[in-house]
């Protein structure tokens, strides 16, 4: 039983990270119906940015928690700037092009960013400093829950609550929902579409950056390729929950995380991806719109 709970916990932790990334996919898809394949790279770049700042701050002898806080804040700001710029450069000019064009643009962008980081940094794994201190109150359960895992769960929960409030109750959240439902009508009610799309990319990128920094400090090493794997997994989670649906992305991520965790624990770690994608295939056969997705009306 304890083994089961341990696996469940590790599933939740994986799921939290997937959720932070999957939200960016699903929000962007909800607004402009684009699979932003470069989203995973934002996550990877933010981990590198955090690493660079953390190294600099470490050299000045700042304590580790302050370093972590400052480095991750800066990484989030950087990621937001990246998200904003990428949308303006790669997607906005293609807004009225056939749907395949921005998709190709996204894939191209993903390759460019990966190779840019590989050339500018290195192609091998680089160690990420362990900046999260041992919290005293976790000592009694430290054998099942590391401080970094604790931080992942807490921060993800807080971020989800904030995001829900923003989407549900603020002016910008209402405008985002309106644009997702009917872009032209939203425009005719005075909503600036470009502003809303930019904000969506910025929020998505910030969430990915939070995920990137957390996972980097949890695992302890990063390279230029982590964004691709995490991106594909998070995308799977978003599809699992119903792409375009925000609670669906979180639910899909948790299910995917737990599936992987149980597959690793009870079968073999070699099979974690097999189980993850088998779930996706089964779901796409029996419920193609995703768990919480809505059936699309055929347009006449």
């Amino acid at each position, binding site marked *: 039983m304890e083994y089961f709970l341990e696996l469940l916990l590790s599933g939740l932790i994986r799921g939290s990270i997937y959720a932070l990334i999957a939200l960016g996919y699903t929000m962007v898809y909800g607004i402009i119906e684009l699979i932003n394949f470069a989203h995973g790279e934002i996550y990877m770049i933010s981990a590198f940015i955090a690493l660079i700042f953390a190294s600099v701050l470490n050299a000045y002898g700042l304590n580790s928690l302050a370093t972590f806080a400052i480095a991750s804040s800066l990484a989030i700001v950087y990621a937001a700037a990246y998200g904003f710029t990428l949308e303006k450069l790669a997607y906005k000019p293609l807004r009225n092009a056939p749907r395949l064009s921005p998709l190709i643009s996204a894939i191209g962008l993903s390759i460019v960013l990966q190779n840019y980081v590989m050339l500018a940094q290195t192609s091998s794994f680089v160690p990420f400093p362990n900046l999260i201190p041992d919290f005293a109150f976790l000592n009694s359960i430290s054998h099942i829950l590391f401080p970094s895992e604790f931080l992942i769960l807490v921060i993800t929960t807080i971020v989800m609550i904030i995001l829900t409030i923003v989407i549900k109750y603020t002016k910008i959240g*209402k405008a985002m929902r309106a644009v997702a439902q009917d872009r*032209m*009508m939203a*425009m*005719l009610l005075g909503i600036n579409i470009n502003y809303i799309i930019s904000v969506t990319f910025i929020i998505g990128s910030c969430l990915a950056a939070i995920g990137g920094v957390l996972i980097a400090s949890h695992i302890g090493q990063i390279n230029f390729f982590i964004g691709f794997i995490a991106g594909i997994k998070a995308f799977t989670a978003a599809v699992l929950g119903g792409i375009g649906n925000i609670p669906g992305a979180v639910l899909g991520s948790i299910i995917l995380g737990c599936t992987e965790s149980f597959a690793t624990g009870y079968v073999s770690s070699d099979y974690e991806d097999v189980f993850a994608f088998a779930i996706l295939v089964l779901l796409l056969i029996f419920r193609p719109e995703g768990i919480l997705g809505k059936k699309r009306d055929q347009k006449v």
Partner: protein
Amino acid sequence: MSHNKILEIQNLSMEFGGLQALDSINITFYEKEVVAIIGPNGAGKTTLFNCITGVYVPTRGNIFIQNPYTQMKEKINGLKPNIITRKGMARTFQNIRLFKNMTVLENVMIGRHCHAKAGIISAMVRSKKTRDEEARIIHDSRELLKKVNLVDEQYEYAKNLSYGYQKRLEIARALATKPFLLLLDEPAAGMNSKETAELMDLLKEIKKDLHIALLLIDHDMHFIMNLSEKIFVMDYGKKIAEGTPEEIQKNPLVIKAYLGENI
């Protein structure tokens, strides 16, 4: 009462490939008027609406609006729909285009938001300014819902309303953008005679209380003749007649356009 111009359409043409959807249209609208545009299907009525509201960029010609409060005259063709809306023009569509997964109140609030000042940062920290503004928006939106008699349904999802209620909600949402000209594309389409009569009363009340001009497209002649002070008739992208309802009913060109040549 002085009548100022609010919208001037000069030589407006719109072509789609080889199709001439609008052909040198000249129309002037005055403050607080109720005007109707009628014409057979495919005459270009909705295209004209789309040009005025910025959905289409016209091929040739100019559209000017003159704000009745500031008397400022500006050219609006080529501007984006959201900019034109902020300048005081609102519209509803032939088919219902509510945000179906939002509540009735939220639908109206979205219309009001385009006049809100608070930016994203102050919205996130929920400063006093934001909270005051939000409270005012909710208050204004409820007032509008009272006007269209939907205040009891304010927390319902828009998709759960009946057809007639949805039409009324669309009008309330359009009014929330504080227009001085409201464009209504077939507001009475698909309504039974009771609903049409209610809509007529509502529009009369809106005109009287809010002092805005209404521009209607509809095929229900009883509705049009009862409500409008002036009528423009379009056929094949051209304006073929204009005048009061009585004049239009007697105009031989109009009769020909509607009933054909050999009657």
